[in-house]
């Protein structure tokens, strides 16, 4: 067990955003968080790595309470890619190098540069290394953000809709890459994702959120026509094509 979320509660201006959310994730698993807009998914991610301080409950990484860790220690354990980010004028190399921030004392070392170099190579971003990130396409930019989170060498990677602005090719490329790296390096991935079929292709486990609570959690079996009707209020048909579940709205 790598990540355990225990009774997490969060409210914003006395409006409850998260209510008693609990789940457990094992090493190397890919987790998809599903639910309609405003169900509390983004808030859940932000509460896990202390961008927001939860009102109650606790998050544990390898049985260590995140709430008791200094923020810099959290950063060494959890990488985070936000949904929206303002694009500042820095080069791809610098943007990824920023991921080494939790480890940098005063100046970057050759080791930091080496790590960034390897990650850039891994994501085939090498040729862009001195390009400014505001000149990149959506897919390349998303990859840079993921590369930055990977430079933190985290145990857990939190992704807030990493594919929402990408075309089909890039969606699949980015998700396949994340899955590959999760397997290789034993990184646990928690990602918010809206496309149910992409989620089914990508994730091992699913959490469905409804009205700021967990509706259901588990393997592929939790994605049912009834569950989707309850969570999204949409009638769907689930078909098996080539042994894969496919969700078709009707």
């Amino acid at each position, binding site marked *: 067990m790598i990540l355990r979320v225990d009774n997490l509660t969060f409210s914003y201006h006395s409006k409850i955003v998260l209510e008693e959310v609990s789940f457990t994730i094992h090493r190397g698993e890919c987790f998809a968080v599903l639910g309609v807009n405003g169900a509390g998914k983004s808030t859940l991610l932000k509460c896990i790595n202390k*961008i927001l301080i939860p009102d109650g409950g606790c998050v544990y990484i390898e049985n260590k309470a995140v709430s008791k860790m200094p923020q810099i220690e959290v950063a060494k354990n959890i990488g985070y890619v936000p949904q929206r980010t303002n694009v500042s*004028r*820095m080069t791809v190399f610098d943007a990824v190098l*920023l991921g080494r921030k939790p480890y940098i004392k005063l100046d970057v070392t050759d080791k930091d540069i080496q790590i960034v*170099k390897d990650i850039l190579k891994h994501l085939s971003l090498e040729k862009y290394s001195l390009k400014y990130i505001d000149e990149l396409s959506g897919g390349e930019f998303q990859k840079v953000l993921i590369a930055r989170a990977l430079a933190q060498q985290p145990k857990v990677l939190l992704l807030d809709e990493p594919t929402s602005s990408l075309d089909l090719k890039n969606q699949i490329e980015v998700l396949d890459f994340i899955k590959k790296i999760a397997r290789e390096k034993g990184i646990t991935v928690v990602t918010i994702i809206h496309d149910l079929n992409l989620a089914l292709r990508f994730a091992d486990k699913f959490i469905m959120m409804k009205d700021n609570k967990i509706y259901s959690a588990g393997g592929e079996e939790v994605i049912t026509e009834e569950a989707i009707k309850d969570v999204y209020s949409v009638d769907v048909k689930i078909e098996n094509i080539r042994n894969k579940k496919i969700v078709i709205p009707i």
Partner: protein
Amino acid sequence: MQVDIIYKKYIGKKKYVFIMLLLILFILSFIALNLGASKITLIDLIGFFSGINNQDANLIFWRIRFPRILAAIIAGAALSISGCIMQNNLKNPLASPFTLGISNAAAFGANVAIILLDAGSTQSSTKDAVIINNPYIVSVCAFIFSIFATLIVIKLAKLKFFSKEAIVLSGVALGSLFTAATTLIQYFAQDYQVAVAVFWTFGDLGRVSYKEVLIMAVATLISYTYFYVHKWDYNALEASDDIAKSLGVDVEKLRLRSLLLVSFATATSVSFIGVIGFIGLIAPHIMRRIIGSDLRFLMPTSAILGSVLLLLSDTLARTIISPIILPVGVLTSFLGAPLFLYLLIKGEARR
């Protein structure tokens, strides 16, 4: 070629820019040391054959020109670094050392000292009619009110968890409050007191001696050391608050300390030399164009460019209609405004 080698070369170029700027500053200082109302040059200092008494040359160099040049270098750097940090912290291109209302608060403090505590007076009817009897009371008052204003802004911003908007808005509100208060006490003041107060506000490097230069240098150095040690935190902040937090930066603490130190460095300079506008706004802007927004390089280069710009302005102010010395604050605003507009228009065209 390998990515890491290309990157290191790219970084090397930025260091080269810093060295170039340092060289420019050095040459400029040398020129400034040789220019002035009295036609004394460095040659007179060493030369036995000149008609000018060595004693005079010594006095003019070491007591008048040299501290003035040092003051320009230090104040220019202090204002520019402060502007750089403010622009980064508030993610606002219009942020400057005076965004928190320091200039207005300092001016109010000086007015309190000059008018209410009667620290200024006039001499008969000569050109230099205004004299500040007790410059230290004025400086101390200006400093106290600057820090006081900062603390109020921070207190207000804290209610909103140091959001950028809260800081800017409370700074602007407090600034206008202090301006109103200044106008009010000037309304009930004697003519000569208002003259002295206005004269103080101009911003003039001629007021300082080595002692003040030293105090300014220490304040600037303390602030700069903190900023430089936290350069990566500022870089993370450049991305976004959430990203900075996810990278282990305590954003609220960083903002609080940055604001305090910016105010400390700025207030110290302003208390001794008055308000000098535009340097803190424009130097980081120019540097960002040349070198990018990486604070590792932006901070040191902006600092030097700030020194260069202020020294250049002051040298012009001293020589342009010599022997009359213009207040440098007027000149920086005159030069700064068109330069700023130029950057603005050029920047718009590029997009």
